[in-house]
């Protein structure tokens, strides 16, 4: 019975389009219940013990959908979850069809030699959204500019960026966890987008202005940065 079901989902995935093959997951695009849908499939990792692998994969899947709901309840944009198949570890999500990643947006602005000021509104919005998310005690766990989407035609920042990829997320109220979350983003941001220190600074200022709990978080961010620097001096 169970194997039939697995076949059903895999047969369906055969008819969809693979858009990203990652280390942990494959992302497909197709039609589900008549709607454009993103399907994120977490596949087994052969090098891990099967039982442990199953447990970790299941946890990632549940964390991802729980955090999406928690964010949406707080008014933070994240894709609608349509269906979760816990036997094949597939999440069926609303496809933001013409959305682009924040990463691609920043790249295209930089490449087109437009002034960085075009991105100020976006940095402000990103800071606000992340502050709101941390105020809900959601730690994203994998903040990058690829894990934030902009709805079509929203370069100007009219709507909030949409957060995705919550597989490593968890719930914590600790300033340290939030500080590390921001540190991960800072690292990813500055290495993906050269010469954006001022822009990232603006994002942090907006974060600070948006969250009452930010002073403790920023203090931790500074500590983590210092630790990171010491480590790289030693290493």
């Amino acid at each position: 019975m169970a194997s039939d079901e697995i076949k059903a989902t895999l047969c369906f995935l055969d008819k969809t389009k693979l858009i990203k093959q990652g280390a942990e997951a494959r992302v497909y695009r197709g039609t589900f219940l008549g709607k454009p849908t993103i399907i994120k499939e977490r596949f087994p990792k052969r090098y891990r013990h099967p039982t442990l692998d199953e447990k970790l994969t299941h946890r990632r899947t549940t964390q991802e959908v729980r955090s999406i709901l928690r964010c949406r309840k707080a008014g933070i944009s994240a894709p609608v979850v349509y269906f979760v198949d816990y036997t094949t570890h597939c999440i069926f999500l609303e496809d933001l069809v013409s959305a682009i990643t924040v990463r691609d947006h920043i790249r295209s602005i930089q490449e087109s030699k437009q002034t960085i000021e075009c991105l100020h509104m976006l940095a402000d919005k990103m800071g606000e959204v992340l502050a709101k998310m941390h105020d809900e005690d959601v730690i994203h766990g994998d903040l990058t500019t690829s894990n934030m989407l902009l709805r079509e035609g929203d370069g100007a920042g009219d709507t909030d960026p949409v957060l995705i990829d919550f597989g490593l997320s968890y719930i914590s109220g600790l300033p340290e966890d939030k500080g590390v979350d921001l540190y991960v983003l800072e690292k990813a941001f500055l290495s993906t987008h050269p010469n954006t220190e001022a822009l990232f600074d603006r994002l942090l200022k907006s974060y600070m202005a948006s969250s009452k709990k930010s002073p403790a978080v920023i203090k931790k961010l500074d500590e983590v940065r210092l630790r990171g620097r010491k480590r790289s001096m030693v290493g």
Partner: protein
Amino acid sequence: MHLTQQLELFPDHFVTQLLFKDVKNAAELKKKAMEGQISGALINASMVLDPFQLLVATNKAIHLQKTGKMKTRSLYSEIIFNLSPTNNISEAFKRFGISDHDNAVHIVLVHTKEEDHNIDSILSKVEGQQIPISQMSMLSDTAKIRKLYKVTSQEEKCGSLLDSVICRMAIKDVL
């Protein structure tokens, strides 16, 4: 009038939705469904917003049936249970199943491509006026839905009421 759609995950399965208003015999229909004389999910039409909501509930019910993980005794009761934001079964039937005095009824049938004769049998049993599925939103009680699913205004800023409902239905088993 009715709407029939094929399920992408289960291509042998078709879902037909029918909508009735001014129904006079809800109590009798409910009794027949419980005795197995009607095979279909009889749903309180004021609690549903859009055909997509029923498709999501039905797809999940078939998936759970095939994986042996249903929480209720039949596919049709599972569809009703899946509409609810909580895991309380009797509460789900009370809110989403039809009650004796309901006059608007939404019916969901699951069948194969060939085997759609059940539709005529349903039409002969309901004493009420069939209306197009496209009119279903006129029968929804959005205030009651907001309250039952606990949807706040801040959530509706980042999506529709339907989005909020769908998310809760999809995620409730891991809350």
